[in-house]
């Protein structure tokens, strides 16, 4: 009586294991089938390699000036030419990339931590916590981002913050201004999750609230956090570039893609010396496009409702 039952069960189990894959494996497989997203990923990896490894192969250093070759066009000596102080553009573009990518990643990390936590708390506790957090979110959403950033940038300049430290403030500011969208996404996700039966089970087991939130609810919101964060990195890079272009973000001599474009702020440089502004501009364009392609690919791959695998 016992034996055959057990055997069929084992058989069933083997079949099950062959048939079902973990949600992550399915997502990876679907992502790998998305050609555009893969191209984006490859480009981004190359971009990172160029920015973080490339400078080691350069014969120049960051603030070294080649006085004889100022404003020179691309040549065998300076592959992408030099600026008006005779600094090598190629090296500066690579080092600027380090700054811009780091600012983008760290700023996004900050807004993800704030947004996910506040969103989870609002969705889990509802009532007062929800009302307060979501009203604050509405206030942040109503603030016009660029004027605020410009004002804060001007304040930083006024306080004479050292250029190296400015980057950290910049990350913080961009991060703090960017949490609202994710907080709303996480909150709505958690509002639906908390009604699921497995959350009733955690209540019946008498688990602590922080375990319910961080062990049970948050892991189920990871897909939307990943997608939102990926697209957020592109946004943060653009914001940083815009601010730096306006002279309120990363300030020279520290290079960033934004303030390098600003170097070509007169008509002569713009028309006669395109090698000054085209390389950093192309870098922004390519990086942001690549990240957005990855983000779109991830969204499709992680969406359980997409049936065609």
């Amino acid at each position: 009586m016992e034996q055959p039952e057990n055997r069929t069960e084992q058989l069933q189990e083997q079949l099950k294991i062959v048939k079902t894959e973990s949600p992550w494996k399915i997502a990876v497989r679907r992502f790998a089938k998305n050609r555009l997203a893969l191209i984006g990923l490859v480009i981004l990896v190359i971009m990172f390699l160029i920015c973080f490894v490339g400078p080691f192969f350069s014969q120049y250093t960051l603030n070294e000036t080649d006085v004889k070759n100022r404003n020179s066009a691309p040549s065998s000596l300076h592959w992408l030419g030099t600026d008006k102080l005779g600094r090598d553009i190629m090296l500066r573009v690579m080092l600027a990339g380090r700054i811009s990518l780091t600012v983008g990643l760290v700023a996004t990390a900050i807004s993800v931590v704030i947004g996910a936590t506040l969103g989870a708390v609002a969705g889990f506790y509802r009532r007062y916590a929800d009302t307060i957090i979501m009203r604050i979110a509405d206030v942040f959403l109503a603030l016009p981002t660029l004027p605020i950033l410009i004002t804060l940038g001007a304040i930083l300049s006024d306080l004479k913050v050292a250029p190296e430290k400015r980057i950290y403030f910049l990350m913080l500011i961009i991060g703090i201004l960017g949490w609202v969208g994710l907080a709303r996404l996480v909150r709505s996700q958690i509002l639906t999750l908390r009604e699921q039966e497995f959350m009733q089970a955690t209540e019946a087991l008498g688990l602590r609230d922080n375990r319910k939130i961080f062990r049970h609810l948050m892991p189920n919101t990871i897909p939307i956090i990943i997608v939102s964060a990926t697209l957020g990195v592109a946004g943060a890079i653009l914001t940083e570039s815009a601010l730096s272009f306006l002279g309120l973000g990363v300030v020279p001599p520290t290079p960033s893609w934004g303030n390098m474009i600003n170097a070509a702020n007169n008509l002569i440089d713009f028309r006669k010396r395109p090698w000054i502004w085209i390389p950093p501009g192309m870098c922004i364009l390519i990086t942001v496009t690549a990240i957005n392609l990855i983000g779109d690919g991830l969204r499709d791959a992680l969406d359980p409702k997409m049936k065609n695998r």
Partner: protein
Amino acid sequence: MSESAVQLDKTRSSGSGEPLVQVNNLKKYFPITGGVFQRRVGDVRAVDGVSFSINRGESFGLVGESGCGKSTIGRTLLRLNEKTDGTVHFNGQDVHELSKTELRKLRTKMQIVFQDPFSSLNPRIKVGEAIGEALLDHGLVSRKELKDRVIETMKICGLADYHYDRFPHEFSGGQRQRIGIARALIMQPEFIVADEPVSALDVSIQAQIINLMSDLQREKQLTYLFISHDLSVVEHLCNRVGVMYLGTMMEMAPTEELFSNPLHPYTKALMSAIPVPDPTLKRERIVLQGDIPSPANPPSGCKFHTRCPMASDICKQQVPEYRDMGNEHFVACHFA
């Protein structure tokens, strides 16, 4: 396994006679809101004044159609829902009066097994952790002992130790229900609410799970509230049975008494629907007319009068008294 279940039938006693759970006039209304301002425009009377008690070591069955409030009672007993009115006492403590920390402590003593083994397990948590996390969270066991305890409990529930690091989606429905049972059992509770634990499983697996539950009851001296709409399951497993209709208890009696001598017309109709594996037997099948009325607007008098074959004028006007007919047999009908 099936042999031991038969044995259980013979040795079945109605517990030690000392009540573990006492429910008194319990009501649970869910508000219906409407309009622009979400005003309360009515109530769904899911549970409308139900009283019963469950003795230590016994299993009490609760049967009725879907939507009659069985599951709501189970959940309100454990305070997964807040009650509207009435009291629930567990071991002498009023469950709905406890503070958050007191309630958390009591949670280890009363557990629930859910109906749907698919939605009651978090898809992103490994089975071993899902079973053991509550022990850890309550500080009942050290991290070192945890795994041994979990594997021990998994084995009791018919799972293997190599299942420890697997995710729920790698299991079949019956195995998932075993995981759900293990999760409830590891806390060493005194009382388990089984909320239709087998209705989502196919028949061959149902028998396994029911036998597992009755074995566990015998070994661990558990007390069950067994919610089901399958009368034969209840007859097999329970000492006493309550029959519910539209949020009210219609009849309650020891199992054998209820099945041999049903007094309420609703119970009789339910009994006549149990399939009997004998094709030559001619039975009188009582088919109820109409649908179950809305619990938001229950009928006057006896709630069953709209579908009762015996209904008369008195049923429409007077709520029948819940009477003791002797032999622990209670019924709410004017004609019983």
